[in-house]
């Protein structure tokens, strides 16, 4: 399990240093304002695929890099099964994999890359790597420097899944994938991950992952607006796809063939969650949503 307590992180040279006096009127950012993440508290449980959503610059990638130990929390702490990720202990690293949004073209064949590095992860399976590569229609014998960005991304996705780690952090994994590959990616994630794994996927392309992510975490600048399972969301919010307009809708949008409205679920009726509408409804009603879900 991942436990995040009062996590804070800031970029820039004045980060966290309250002794530096800056003038806000002159356009200086106060150290407090520079926090990308501030007082973040949450628990990420086993056996779930978390969808990490948020606008640009709210700290999705920062949170993922903090979770995998690429950055050091400036305040608060992260505990992953008793490990502090920033210590980068091999025993912890061997049970986690971070798939960056920017992937590196190594000067070797994909299969050699898997052979060369897979051995560091105890659960890694070369057969599984080849199988996922085939499912994603990518040639493992191809040199990585000759691959397109999409092919390279699929190679790294295959490697990440073949590592069979308990913790898997993916930053924008569907960026650069073509339409069939996105479906294959969803299939691969559900098929090739452990039952006890904690997967956190950060994305802007909510439709790409609509059917696999549960719970949903929506980050705002310095805050967590929502951290709830699909069942909790459906219990508290109602997604109305009829063209009848209601005045108390939290969010409404015209869609081809009608409209979609998000309202409070007062009848307990079940509805199909639309992630884009949910995201917009949360952003337009931040305090209300936090109040509803933090009860």
């Amino acid at each position: 399990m991942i436990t995040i307590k009062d996590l804070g992180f800031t970029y820039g040279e004045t980060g966290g240093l309250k002794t530096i006096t800056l003038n806000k009127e002159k356009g200086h950012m106060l150290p407090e304002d520079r926090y990308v993440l501030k007082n973040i508290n949450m628990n990420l449980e086993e056996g779930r695929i978390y969808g990490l959503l948020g606008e640009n610059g709210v700290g999705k990638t920062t949170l993922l890099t903090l979770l995998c130990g690429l950055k050091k929390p400036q305040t608060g702490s992260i505990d992953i099964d008793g490990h502090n990720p920033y210590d980068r202990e091999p025993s912890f690293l061997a049970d986690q994999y971070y798939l960056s949004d920017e992937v590196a073209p190594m000067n070797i064949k994909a299969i050699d890359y898997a052979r060369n590095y897979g051995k560091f992860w105890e659960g890694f399976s070369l057969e599984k790597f080849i199988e996922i590569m085939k499912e994603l229609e990518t040639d493992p014998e191809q040199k990585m420097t000759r691959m397109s960005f999409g092919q390279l991304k699929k190679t790294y996705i295959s490697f990440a899944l073949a590592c069979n780690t308990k913790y898997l952090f993916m930053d924008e994994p569907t960026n650069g994938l073509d339409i069939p590959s996105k479906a294959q990616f969803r299939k691969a994630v559900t098929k090739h991950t452990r039952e006890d794994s904690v997967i956190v996927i950060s994305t802007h392309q909510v439709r790409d992952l609509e059917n696999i992510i549960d719970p949903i975490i929506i980050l705002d600048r310095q805050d967590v607006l929502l951290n709830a399972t699909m069942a909790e969301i459906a219990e508290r919010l109602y997604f109305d796809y009829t063209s009848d307009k209601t005045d108390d809708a939290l969010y409404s949008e015209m869609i081809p063939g009608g409209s979609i409205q998000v309202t409070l679920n007062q009848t307990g009726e079940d509805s199909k969650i639309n992630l884009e509408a949910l995201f917009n409804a949360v952003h337009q009603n931040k305090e209300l949503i936090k109040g509803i879900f933090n009860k």
Partner: protein
Amino acid sequence: MKTNDIFNFRRFGKYFTSDLRTCWANYGLSLLTIAILFPVVTYFLTNAFNLVLNSTWDGPDIGLRSFIFIVATICLVVTMPVKCYGKITEKQYGSFFLTLPASRLEKFVSMFLMTSIIAPALGFALYLGTDAIICALDHTCGRNLVAGAMELIRNMGDMKELTMNFVDESITIENAALVHEILGQISNPWMYIDEIFGITLPFLLGAIYFKNGKTVKTILAIFAFSMATSIIMTPFMETWAAEIVRNANADPNTILQMFNNGIFKHLVLIDTISDTVVNLALMAGIWLRIKTLKH
């Protein structure tokens, strides 16, 4: 932290072989170019010039080949760390390097061995091997570099004979013994062995510390460090140097007695200590960079 998380020989073996493969993929061609092409091109160019200018087939002599060997060594030392490890300052490569399940110490030791021992040793072996083949095929080149170096060492080792050449009417037996001692100190191979690390380590540190302009910035940093140490050392050396200048026209015995002090009598020890301190500082810098690198 458990001992297994600090250093594990089995995991280090895996990491080192992976590192070796990756370095070979990234730098193998450059190494072959430097180690094989340099002596071959030197041989053909010298012969071509001799044919055009002197109408003779005359290969490069040992002096020119030694000079090119030094140039090749500098090229190898300067380019290897950047090509093999320079990319860890980039997010795509660095993220993977930092999250690869091996300890910081294992990554550090592997880096050190690769840049300071494996690559120079392989480069030297290939270069000297190529030189030996060229000299065996074409006797106009004279002795090969290995034979030349062996002879130089043999000559330097035979100090007594060399010293006795100084003993004439103007130099006393006591001063001849002093010359013998100084030359003995200078010809101690240990004085030069640790210099190898003093050349390779700054470029490794520069490769993983600077984000761009790695080689140029490293050279500038070395230059700045040399300037700083010169400024610090000047007051200590000034009096002694002034005395040498003052006695420049004195008889050889007076000049030689000026070298009869602790610095020259313990030259190897002083040199070894100062080199060790610098090398340890550089290693600490490399270790700290690996420990604190974030993406």
